[in-house]
């Protein structure tokens, strides 16, 4: 494994625009050194989630250090869980983080940019639940 490789991030949202916007924001805040791939909406552009899109995104996001996936709500979680239950030729390690979507991806991406491994990136994302804005 390349020691300089950063953990990649995949955003799974029902909305392509939401996933892309969150990816754009996180890239700005974390300095653009981490692969953040949006997997939002269905293959035909509707609101929903697509296992095939998530699979492509995970492969695209992996730079050799693994991938952390952040889902927005409900069936996004189910889609990712189904995919990880039957991972085929997905890169490893791939972990699903239980975190608020916007804060989670910002925290995860910053942790990845700082060189954190998959466990550290998941932890940063999950700690985002306790962060106060005010």
């Amino acid at each position, binding site marked *: 494994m390349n020691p300089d490789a950063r953990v990649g991030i995949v955003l799974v949202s029902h909305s392509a625009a939401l996933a892309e916007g969150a990816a754009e924001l996180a890239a700005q*805040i*974390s300095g653009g050194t981490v692969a953040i791939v949006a997997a939002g909406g269905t293959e035909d552009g509707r609101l929903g989630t697509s296992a095939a899109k998530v699979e492509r995104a995970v492969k695209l996001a992996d730079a050799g250090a693994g991938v952390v996936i952040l889902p927005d709500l409900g069936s996004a979680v189910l889609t990712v869980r189904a995919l990880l239950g039957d991972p085929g030729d997905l890169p490893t390690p791939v972990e699903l983080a239980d975190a608020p979507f916007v804060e989670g991806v*910002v*925290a995860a991406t910053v942790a990845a940019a700082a060189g954190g491994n998959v466990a550290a990136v998941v932890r*940063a994302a999950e*700690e985002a639940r306790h*962060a106060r*804005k005010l």
Partner: protein
Amino acid sequence: MPASCEQVITLAGDLHARPAGALAVAAGQFSARVSLSVGDRSADAKSVLAVMGLGATSGQHVTATAEGPDAEAAVAAIIAILAEATRVGA
């Protein structure tokens, strides 16, 4: 015994999301524990959300504190980022 280091800076501008991100990425490179404090609030400098949650604004005094073998370098890096990123017009 671990080294510790502390330095204060007066912000020339508000601590926005992007400098908070740069600061947390930089802090994360060090093994030292690094924290920022403003008034009676403090935050883990390695947590971008905690840093943003400080809500530090122009004119406030921010103290960067580090404890660990690379504490001095960590504080120097954090102070440099705070100085550069909150510069008016940055």
